[in-house]
């Protein structure tokens, strides 16, 4: 029975993949999202080799040419240390990617098992887990991050910790909602009567059914986590200088407004386009993978 079950989805998944490609192709916003995400990943991968001068991200100084407006030599202008903003913005991509992945990753790793446990076991386990989840849901993430700045000082790791604390409850809720109805499904009952252990049921029956919504949410969350991390950079939890980070760059650039407008414009544009990319992609994925919840 298991072998048959395993074979059938493969054929289905191939067909499904073609269907997905077709749907995406006909959906301009999703295409746009995919494109933006692809560019973002590409920049993160090859950034150091394509930027004008990678040393500008590790503490080089050209104080003779500080705060120059965009020009042919410096497409995005220069900052207060005379460093090329294009270089720094591009190299900050990796930091943001890392932050987005870490926050989303921690949230999934913490939230999914809790959600599955709550949904599958129900009863007291569920109510304890869900109450804890509710509690963390009402922690205002940015303000908590402020408290962390006040206590620990700036540092991107501190920001990641603050965001991870408030990020996982979303996954518990999502997975719990998916797992709860599965509990009473005949195939779960059947597995149980055939002597499967709880763990096995969870891994082979419940978890696979939660993958689609998980992928959709993770894609959306990548964008939101990057945005939240940039916000932390702005309020002072950014990367350690001289490492470039978008939010921190805008925070510094604020002192040089309005005359050096380019300094805050470009990092912000990068945040916006990256987050937009992940959001559009997530939106499109939801339409395809999880059509029933395509609202709100």
């Amino acid at each position, binding site marked *: 029975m298991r072998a048959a079950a395993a074979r059938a989805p493969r054929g289905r998944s191939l067909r499904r993949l073609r269907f997905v490609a077709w749907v995406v192709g006909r959906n301009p916003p999703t295409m746009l999202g995919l494109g933006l995400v692809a560019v973002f990943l590409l920049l993160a991968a090859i950034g150091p080799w394509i930027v004008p001068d990678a040393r500008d991200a590790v*503490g*080089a*100084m050209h*104080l*003779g040419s500080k*705060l*120059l*407006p*965009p*020009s042919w030599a410096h497409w995005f202008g220069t900052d*207060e*240390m005379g460093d090329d903003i294009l270089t720094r913005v591009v190299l900050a991509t990796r930091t943001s990617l890392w932050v987005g992945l870490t926050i989303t990753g921690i949230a999934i790793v913490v939230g999914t098992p809790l959600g599955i446990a709550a949904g599958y076991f129900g009863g007291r386990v569920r109510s304890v887990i869900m109450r804890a989840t509710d509690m963390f849901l009402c922690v205002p993430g940015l303000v908590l991050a402020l408290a962390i*700045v*006040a*206590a*620990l*000082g*700036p*540092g991107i790791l501190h920001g990641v910790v603050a965001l991870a604390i408030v990020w996982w409850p979303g996954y518990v809720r999502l997975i719990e909602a998916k797992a709860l109805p599965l509990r009473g499904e005949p195939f779960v009952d059947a597995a149980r009567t055939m002597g499967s252990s709880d763990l096995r049921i969870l891994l082979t029956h419940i978890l696979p059914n939660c993958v689609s919504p998980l992928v959709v949410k993770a894609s959306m969350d990548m964008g939101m986590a990057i945005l939240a991390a940039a916000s932390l950079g702005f309020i*002072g939890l950014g990367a*350690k*200088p*001289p490492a470039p980070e978008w939010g921190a760059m805008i925070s*510094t650039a*604020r*002192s*040089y*407004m*309005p*005359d*050096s*407008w380019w300094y805050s414009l470009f990092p912000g544009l990068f945040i916006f386009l990256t987050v937009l990319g992940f959001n559009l992609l997530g939106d499109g994925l939801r339409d395809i993978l999880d059509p029933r919840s395509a609202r709100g």
Partner: protein
Amino acid sequence: MRRRNFLIASSAAAAAAGLHTQPADAFVREGKRKVLVFSGGQPVPVLDPHVKYDYSTRMMQQSIYDALAKYVDNPARIVPWLAKSWESSPDGKTWTFHLVENATFHNGDPVDAEAVRFSYERGLKLNKGVAWMLKDHLDPSGIKAADPHTVVFTLKSAFPGFLSFVPWWFIVNPKEVMAHAVNGDMGQKYLTDHAAGSGPFKIRRWDPQAVMDLQAVANYWKGWPEGDANRPAGVIYQVIREPAPRKAALLRGQVDMVTDMTPQDYDQLAKTAGIKVSSNPGMTPFTIMMNTQHGPTADLNFRKALAWAMDYKAFLQVENGAAKLMDSPFPNAMAGHIAVPDMPHHDLEKARAYLAKTKWAKGGLTIDYVYVAGLEVERQLGLAVLSSLQPLNIKVNVQAMPWPQLVARGSNPQTGPAMIAVYVTPVSTDPDVVASQYASSAAGRYWGMHHLSDPGLDKMVETARLETDPTKRMALYAEIQKRIVADQPAIFGMMEDRRWAMRDDVRGFVFCPVRLTGEVDFYPMWVA
């Protein structure tokens, strides 16, 4: 090219809105009189003159309160104020102040010897703010009101620096303060956002986070230097936290004077019609304190290597040239300052020579540079340090910390970072203020985070502090400056110029170096 276009565009927009030609807005008038509007980035959470001081706070305190004497002019002089004269006994222990007869508090009470005695006692007993200046030399019992217009201070020991602190001890009205005392707080709660002073201004509206509106006291007991016709109706201190909107407010004529701007802003404002920038030599050394007890910087040769490796020119560039490199641990305006021979400058050969005498001849280590989170210039200087030490193969971890955490870490030699960026404005021109920062008694204090322990230096500082012969005293301080440089507990950086930008109808501004960076004395000022 693009930039020029933008400048033209923005000044055109400003001209279109009539910004440059328009006088300050109508609200800054009161009848025929004008109100001077000043803007800085720092609020005034605690007005109490015995509890707290920083530039914005003391600017308000100096406006609302008087002291026995006052610092004016450049170079700074101490002139009589509530005291019309004073004398000290030959042994330097007893100081007698004779008060003016006509001074009154804003509520009409006379400023008498008891008020002075009470204020000093309060300052000492609260043990906050200004207390450190005198507490080692004066007990509350040593202050006597001999008659209504004579106060006698009997110090525990001779202390030539005594007078240099007197201008910072403001006199409060004992009756008003004690009437509002709760739970034995000597009126601290009340004076946090109320005043009980005798100064040229009194509070009209007090929103310490945003707008502090002061009204000129028409019949101020000392009169108005600009004449009653020119006297302003009052002064408003408006807090605008970010430099960009502060600059815009100045350009639009919503404020008359600003401080706390970026070097770029000052350069640009200086070129703007209708705005003038006052640039003055600073007295606030930027130094990088090194941990002399723990880690690689415990090795004098390592410290010397760092000091000689610094690219001091970059420090100046960060300030757009509006700064002066230090040629001594003492700021130039300090009494007894000398240019110390052989002051470290950028010389990589020498730096390498010193480094060769350490365990880290080839570098290959990482040290911390810690600065106060949010201080933009300190961050940029940290990057300059990072770049300076690259040739020595020393990596620098540039780390921001909130002030309280920085102090918590730095005040313990075991946890103290290798380098801490520090700005300290000496509160007076008495050289002891700076010299004692390098004595071992400085341990545990903000500027003592170098943890230097040089018994010889301690002795020199102690002797110089109590020396009453001025010539001998200054000679001692010359030796002290050389000794400090030899010990190299810090990298002596630069002194940032003190700058203010104001509309060109602002009159009467006088720079005085002992005031804190940004602090202005409003008393002689008005708007034409």
